[in-house]
């Protein structure tokens, strides 16, 4: 019987061991290594932990997939509203007209340009500078992941060029710089789809 009373004969409490399991912290780690009672109780708690993970795996499988109808229905109900961000003034040909576009439209443009380029995925982007003042210098910062096997520098400079062209064509921003930060390398498509439990690429 490896789970005895709440307090072991060596003086340690099972509560202390349970906390140790989560935090790795215990007053006298030396004792833990040498005490058979503590070792046995700890093994029992670890077995339970492992069984708990197995249980969770089955429960996640029982909950269904993210592509199932229940999830689609939840997503349909959400009706996500896009936050427009700051308002960027545009020149107008007729005095009295007030034209503008939104920051959200610019980040959507950046994502569209990035997604159209092979081997990259665009993440967060930021417009640094006072975009509400026409002609103020603006720096575009873009987070980026590059697909494994693609040349990082090459992809980044291709993206930078395309972004510069797209921003010049579709916006009136005075783009002083485009800063790209590659944060991840994407693993190529796997033969088997990842499980919902551990699907970090």
């Amino acid at each position, binding site marked *: 019987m*490896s*789970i005895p009373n709440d307090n072991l004969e060596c003086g340690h*409490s*099972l*509560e202390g061991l*349970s*906390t140790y399991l*989560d935090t790795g912290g215990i007053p006298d780690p030396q004792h833990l290594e040498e005490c058979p009672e503590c070792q046995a109780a700890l093994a029992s*708690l670890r*077995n*339970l*932990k492992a*069984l*708990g*993970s*197995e249980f*969770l795996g089955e*429960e996640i499988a*029982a*909950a*269904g*997939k*993210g592509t199932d109808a*229940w*999830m689609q*229905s*939840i997503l349909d*109900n*959400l009706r996500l509203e*896009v936050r*427009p*961000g700051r308002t960027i003034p545009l020149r107008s040909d007729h005095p009295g007209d007030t034209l503008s576009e939104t920051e959200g439209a610019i*980040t*959507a443009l950046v*994502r*569209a340009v990035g*997604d*159209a380029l*092979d081997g*990259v*995925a*665009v*993440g*967060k*982007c930021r417009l640094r500078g006072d975009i509400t003042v026409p002609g103020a210098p603006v720096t575009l910062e873009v*987070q980026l*992941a590059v*697909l494994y096997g693609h040349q990082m520098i090459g992809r980044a400079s291709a993206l930078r060029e395309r972004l510069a062209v797209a921003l010049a064509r579709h916006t009136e921003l005075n783009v002083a710089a485009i800063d790209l930060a590659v*944060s*991840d390398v*994407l*693993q190529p*498509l*796997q033969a088997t789809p*990842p499980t*919902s*439990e551990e*699907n*970090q*690429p």
Partner: protein
Amino acid sequence: MDGQTPLPHGLELVPDAILAGRASDGDTAAFEALARRYGPQMRACARRITGSFADADDVVQESLMQAWNQLDTLRDNGAVKGWLLRITGSRSIDHLRRRKVHPELATAENEATAAGAASNPESAVLNGSRVAALRSALARLPEEQRRCWVLKEFGDQSYEEIASTLKISADSVRGRLARARITLAREMEEWR
């Protein structure tokens, strides 16, 4: 999005941090990809706390709405999974608190959980398995212990996070979680 060739693998394999960054910029497709990725675990966690998939779906929907509205408060985009589960745990408990207002529904949690352990088809299939034994041992735990255990093992929350979700002290969480584990471990050993 615009008919051009997207990434060869779509958004499914794009890492959390990239998706969360896009989502906080207003990319609904990226947010939905995150929802599909972690929705099943959110649903599993909410179901084990609320007692039914119907309640769990309400909770998941509320949690995703809250997440969408608060994305800019997420400091580490790579930590989005834990953040979603934390919101789910907290919303599940809120859901139960609201239900407590209606006494006729107040015992639904225990009944549903116990029934889930005894009669649901998946445990019938697995009857005799260690996981089935754990499921029914969990259903017999006192409610507060069970919540701590589920928030810890399914929701992967820290003591402090569980404490704030349950509005009790971190020391109480430590104690209840230990009690839950000791009982479960004992029952599993007897089962063996």
